[in-house]
């Protein structure tokens, strides 16, 4: 039975990865599960320098979901390489590094640094951060800014490049196509949804940052729709994510058109989820005599 899939030149032993920001730098969960079973480890977003992140409270639980406003706390490129790369580079499965910046140049510079590091599985561009130079529009919600970021990173590295799209758009197709046209090897869909919660007793927002990003099972139906739309618009592979907590959820994404999937928020409440998804996917295929996971990709049957 073949479970392996490709994202550009990167081969994954199976299509099940973890989502950036929900799995730290791998090492934390390595005591609870064997990371070498995963398709890939994806680490928390990293920019050039260290980032303190937002004040607390940073997360709040909502119906079937979580809102977070961590503020991309992280050690920066050097801190990451020093502190986490020895562990990650010793894994048998690829590490994908989620990167960000506030200018196109910063994205490109981070990409160059990781290109030079050697051994990195791929880079995932998190484009849901405000562009400072262009006046704070998000890279991910402006097709031209998005194209610029992908173009610059494509020039900066030969590493497999994954563009992680923002869901916060009228139609995802033009963004998916722009990333593809600029040389992105794959797309990741979806990032979190802008959201807010209020504590009516104190009249204050429940997050210090006022707003945050909604993730978890509550967003799955929207994420499936986005993957399905994007898959019709591009030829490059899509990593589907948003609320996956079972093999059935993962198969939903595959059938909608994703080539791989990532488990995010579910790691927090059930760290075994990613292994359960892999096992469940294998079982599903066995039961139905499906010999190649790629046969599931985009296999939803829509009457014409």
């Amino acid at each position, binding site marked *: 039975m073949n479970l392996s899939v490709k994202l550009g030149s990167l081969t994954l032993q199976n299509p099940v990865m973890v989502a950036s920001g929900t799995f730290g730098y791998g090492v934390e969960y390595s005591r*609870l599960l064997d990371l070498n079973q995963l398709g890939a480890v994806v680490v928390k977003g990293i920019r050039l320098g260290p980032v303190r992140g937002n004040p*607390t409270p940073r997360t709040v*639980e909502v119906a079937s979901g979580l809102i977070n406003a961590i503020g991309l*706390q992280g050690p920066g490129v050097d801190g990451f390489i020093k502190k986490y790369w020895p562990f990650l580079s010793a894994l048998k499965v690829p590490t994908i590094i989620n990167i960000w910046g506030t200018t196109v140049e910063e994205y490109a510079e981070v990409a160059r640094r990781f290109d030079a590091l050697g051994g990195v599985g791929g880079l995932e561009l998190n484009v849901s951060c405000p562009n400072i130079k262009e006046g704070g529009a998000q890279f991910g919600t402006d097709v031209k800014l998005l194209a610029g970021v992908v173009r610059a990173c494509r020039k900066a590295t030969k590493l497999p490049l994954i563009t992680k799209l923002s869901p916060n758009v009228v139609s995802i197709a033009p963004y998916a196509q722009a990333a593809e046209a600029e040389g992105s090897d794959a797309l990741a869909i979806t990032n979190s949804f802008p959201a807010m919660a209020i504590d009516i007793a104190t009249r204050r927002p429940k997050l210090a940052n006022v707003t945050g990003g909604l993730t978890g099972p509550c967003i799955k139906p929207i994420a499936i729709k986005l993957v399905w739309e994007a898959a019709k618009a591009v030829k490059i592979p899509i990593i589907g994510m948003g609320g996956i907590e079972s093999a059935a959820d993962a198969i939903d994404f595959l059938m909608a058109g994703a080539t791989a999937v990532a488990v995010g928020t579910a790691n927090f409440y059930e760290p075994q989820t990613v292994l359960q998804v892999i096992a469940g996917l294998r079982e599903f295929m066995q039961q139905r005599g499906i010999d190649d996971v790629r046969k599931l990709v985009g296999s939803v049957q829509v009457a014409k």
Partner: protein
Amino acid sequence: MLERTVQIVSNERDTDLYFRLVMRAPEMARDAQPGQFVHLRVAAMRDALLRRPFSIYQARGDTLSVLYKSVGKGTDVLARMGPGEELSLIGPLGHGFTLPKAGGETPLLVAGGYGMAAMYMLAERSPQRGIVFAGGRRRVDILCEDEFQKLGWDVRVTTEDGSYGEKGLVTHPLIAELRRSAAGRKLFACGPTPMLKAVGKIAEEFKVPAELSMDEHMCCGVGVCLTCVIPVKTTDGWEYQRTCTEGPVFDASEVMWEMPK
């Protein structure tokens, strides 16, 4: 750190707000240290997706216990569970208290409400006895008094409404005690943040060392999500550290009570 599906041995009401939950979890019971916690998954409820953290209260033989207060969605469902039912547990987690040494500083424990749970394990494991300052809003918030006494600790009770023990805040008898004698004593505290802050200030004032178990909202409990951070002093300024990993127990001198600008 382990993840296990464990069986409930018993889950009984202690006072009308608190419950004692005993679970069969041999490996975790073996590893548990005072001040550590377990991260418990109650049920797949709509509004309670995440695990809930609870201090380890007792670890005896094969069983691990927590002492919890029913305050909301998750603890509400938990309180209705019974022997034989299963829970998912991750633990033991976090960086606990430094065990007092025989002949070392005399431990003064300060506990508010469910903070008594973590303190009990410390009191039990400490080779040296001392004083426990147990505070709460009402009489029902005072837990384990007998048990502390059985271990040979001197228990000083305060309640805010005066329904039991001395009327007032738990810090009152603590200050009185430190005024009598501060040298050679060390504070250990677990309870609500305002209490911890007061204890931190008292430690500073009386120049005694103090370890505080910080009470922050948690999400993953294992250090990946960065929900539970508090600002901590470092040699070159400050940084956010994780309550679930670098804590929950911090040295009082490191904790910053006001957010730096």
